């Protein structure tokens, strides 16, 4: 007999059950519908392609909990707790449908209750309840006592912990009271049976336990309904939104920015919340405020005001605050004055310009939030619509426009084509045809330290017998710094020019030394009609060594550590090749920094910040990274990116560590190890 089938003061339990359900559901639905309408404020974006692939990606993240398990490290095991909670709580959710919904609300109790199925399921739930309660205790201790940097002692989190705990407790209590009232002596489900035995031995009458059971059952039901009402009104909205967000997550190469759509003609980028796409808004709903982005953001860790977590949270609050007005059509000027200006009051300019686009936030985000493109949208608005940017950004962009490279002042020391002097290279000129182009990049062509790397690269390619050409003084910037600094049009102009040049020489393959050029030409030029085979030199050298086209000798007696450039590692997944190359050269094992591979820490030079002045903080990003390298005890930090090399050289100098640590490019190490001819 189910508690629903009883009459309470003349009112049928079924009526009470369904009225309560209707109230809770309408509250839930009202909120869900509002959230849906707010989403639709965003701009259009097609994320409905490759449906099969998307469903698969979503299921892989959700059911085996890859979303949080992928973030588990030795230092942060919270993902395991989340997975346990998810699996166990899912069992409870199913049980609510079966035992409360079907058995109670629909009156199918005779089919379900007192069956071996119930006993079996309740036994599993008992175990699940123990796991959940233990996990909750650990979670509470972590959040309120140990409190790692990424977590805050938030009230919302506390409410959920208490709600879930009470659901578990009520489940066990209900079981025990039910079994006690029915005077069943069983050993399964373990918790329920033990509690029933205890109650009976304590002398509770069947009558008392029965009314206790009824009370607990209805309270349990009320809390489940409360849960449903509360979820879409709290940060736990992520339970609903993040799985949808996993379906809509970006496919294809990581970190590729979208060109400004031709529909945008008056204002560019995002100055109002509705200038983001619906996917960006869905990102906001998905955030569980876990803070992994916050705890791994190089800007945040070095004391800048930017925190990806806060950006997302503030944008979400802003959407919820002004969204309803926007839907209501109250867009007249009077209410617009009341509205906050998004840039400035919701996200500050300091925050916007502090991002290095290193991608650590997105890499660790369990719910597929795309932070960087929001920052870029905000930059686009500042640069393209408002012409507001730090002076250093302006200088860099001006130089890109007038001179085709971002290095203001560098030209007064050397000219773009100077690096080719004395190297006997095939410098392409009109009418030439060449299959393979060695793309040098601005830093590699103009900055003394990096020129050495470029020159070593050409010697190495020649030694391996590769037929290649270079553009010499005709090479211009790939456009990455302009794009990351928000000047999309400047980028597009440069991309189109470069694609035209590549096509005019019938270039098929492009070798790059700079990971930023690599990413841009490989992954971003295709949107502008430039599809070329792009190889980063680390891939090329690894192949040359494997194919024995480049003889190298093992035996370098140096303690090396390798720094993963963000745009090579995180963005393009090239982690193995550089390590394999180094390992085949040195005698010892390669030292790894604590933060490495996909969790590598930025050098501080990405996203245009090689030129845009770093804001004041507690320290500089590159100096923090140099400390990582120092901790390994290595004498040389090797990297494969001109920005990283510059940043390390500068950081080592500032730390006064020049006598203990050198920064070198991988090419230089390889050249040194090449078998002498």
């Amino acid at each position, binding site marked *: 007999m189910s508690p629903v089938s009883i009459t309470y003061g003349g009112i049928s339990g079924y009526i009470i059950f369904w009225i309560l359900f209707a109230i809770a559901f309408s509250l839930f639905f009202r909120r869900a519908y509002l959230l849906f309408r707010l989403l639709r404020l965003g701009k259009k974006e097609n994320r409905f392609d490759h449906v099969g692939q998307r469903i698969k990606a979503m299921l892989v993240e959700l059911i085996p909990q890859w979303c949080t398990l992928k973030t588990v490290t030795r230092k942060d095991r919270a993902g395991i707790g989340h997975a346990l909670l998810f699996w166990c709580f899912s069992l409870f959710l199913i049980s609510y449908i079966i035992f409360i919904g079907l058995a109670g609300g629909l009156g199918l109790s005779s089919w379900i209750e007192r069956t071996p199925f119930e006993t079996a399921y309740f036994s599993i739930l008992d175990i699940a309840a123990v796991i959940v309660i233990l996990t909750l205790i650990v979670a509470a201790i972590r959040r309120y006592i140990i409190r790692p940097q990424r977590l805050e002692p938030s009230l919302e989190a506390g409410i959920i912990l208490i709600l879930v705990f009470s659901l578990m407790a009520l489940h066990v209590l209900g079981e025990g009271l039910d079994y006690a009232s029915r005077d069943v002596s069983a050993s399964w489900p373990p918790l329920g049976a033990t509690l029933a035995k205890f109650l009976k031995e304590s002398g509770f009458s069947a009558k008392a336990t029965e009314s206790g059971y009824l009370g607990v059952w209805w309270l349990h039901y009320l809390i489940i309904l409360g849960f449903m009402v509360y979820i879409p009104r709290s940060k736990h909205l992520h339970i609903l939104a993040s799985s949808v967000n996993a379906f809509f997550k970006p496919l294809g190469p990581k970190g590729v920015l979208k060109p400004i759509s031709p529909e945008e*003609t008056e204002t*560019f980028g995002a100055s109002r919340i509705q200038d983001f796409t619906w996917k960006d808004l869905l990102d906001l709903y998905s955030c569980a405020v876990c803070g992994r982005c916050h705890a791994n953001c190089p800007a945040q860790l070095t004391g800048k005001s930017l925190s990806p977590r806060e950006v997302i949270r503030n944008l979400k609050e802003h959407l919820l605050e002004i969204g309803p007005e926007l839907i209501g059509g109250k867009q007249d000027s009077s209410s617009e004055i009341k509205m906050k200006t998004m840039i400035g009051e919701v996200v500050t300019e300091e925050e916007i310009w502090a991002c290095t686009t290193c991608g650590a936030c997105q890499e660790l985000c369990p719910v597929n939030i795309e932070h960087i493109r929001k920052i870029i949208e905000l930059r686009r608005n500042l*640069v*393209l*619509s408002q*012409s507001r*940017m730090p002076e250093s950004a*302006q200088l860099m*962009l*001006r130089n890109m*426009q*007038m*001179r*085709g490279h971002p290095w*203001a*002042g560098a*030209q*007064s*020391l*050397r*000219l*773009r*084509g100077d690096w080719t002097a004395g190297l006997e290279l095939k410098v392409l000129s009109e009418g030439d045809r060449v299959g393979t182009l060695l793309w040098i990049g601005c830093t590699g062509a103009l900055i003394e330290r990096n020129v050495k790397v470029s020159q070593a690269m050409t010697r190495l390619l020649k030694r391996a017998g590769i037929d290649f050409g270079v553009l*010499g*003084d*005709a090479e211009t910037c790939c456009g990455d710094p302009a794009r990351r600094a928000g*000047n999309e*049009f*400047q980028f*597009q*102009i440069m991309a189109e020019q470069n694609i035209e040049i590549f096509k005019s020489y019938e270039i098929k393959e492009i070798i790059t030394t700079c990971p930023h050029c690599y990413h841009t030409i490989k992954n971003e030029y295709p949107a502008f009609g430039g599809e070329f085979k792009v190889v980063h030199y680390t891939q090329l050298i690894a192949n040359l060594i494997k194919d024995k086209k480049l003889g190298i000798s093992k035996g370098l007696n140096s303690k090396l550590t390798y720094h993963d450039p963000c745009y090579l590692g995180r963005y393009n997944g090239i982690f193995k090749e550089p390590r394999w190359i180094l390992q085949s050269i040195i005698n010892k094992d390669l030292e790894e920094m604590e933060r490495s591979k996909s969790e590598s820490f930025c050098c501080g030079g990405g996203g245009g910040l090689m030129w845009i002045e770093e804001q004041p903080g507690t320290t500089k990003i590159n100096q923090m990274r140099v400390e990582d390298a120092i901790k390994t005890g290595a004498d040389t930090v090797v990297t494969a990116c001109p920005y990283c090399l510059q940043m390390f050289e500068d950081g080592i100098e500032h730390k006064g560590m020049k006598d203990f640590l050198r920064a070198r490019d991988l090419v230089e190490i390889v050249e040194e190890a090449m078998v002498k001819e």
Partner: protein
Amino acid sequence: MNIIVCVKQVPDPEIPPAKFKIDTETKKVIPPPGVPPVISVYDERAVEAACRLKDKHKGKITVISIGSEKAIEVVRHAISMGADEGFVLQDEPFENLDSFGTAYVLGKAIQKIGNYDLILCGRQAADWGAGQVGSILAEILGLPLVTFAFDIQLEDKRFKVKRILKDGYEVVEVPMPALMTVSSEIGLPRLPAGMGLMLARRKQIPIWKAKDIGADPTQLDKTKAHTEITEIFIPKRETHCELITGATPADAAANLALKLIKLI
């Protein structure tokens, strides 16, 4: 308000001096190949001045430049900043003109464009630095001239202009139309962004020849030029480095100050 701005392409000032070559025969400076010319910094500020007036009072900005086909890029830059239209004056007789010849050609082009309220030039070119074209042009067109302007306000069909002096500035008023040369004190020119860049890229920039503007070839005869170059050379630069020390940073600063005082 219709504004015409004269801009010049110059070798990139960032080119290291050692990279220039001098042709002693023809007395010409040869910049290193592969480095595109840029807009003269003062002319860019003249464009900025025009854009500021346009922002405030609406109007049309036309940009003209004498030069090679590369001058198209310089005009394009001005258009991306906010100018509406541009012309390049390119013809054999226009090459290697002195200030008088240049002013004559610009004057002809301006007369062809017609209907102007203000003509702006940079205070001088960033390459030769003669600073004469603006004044001669005003003479040719019979316009009131204000040099070294750094703040131009339009009040009741008259311009109220601040012009920079060695030790301050003075405010002058001129009627419309007028010619002004703009000084760098006006501030940094805007960074072309947004639609400007894309519009400028698609903009057709016509090239005008001598006959298009009705220039009289006899006026451009090089043998009758007012200017003669007698010698051209790259000045030798000597740097001398001296480390100024002191027991404390304050002492070092005091020593530096003493040193500087002696030099002044």
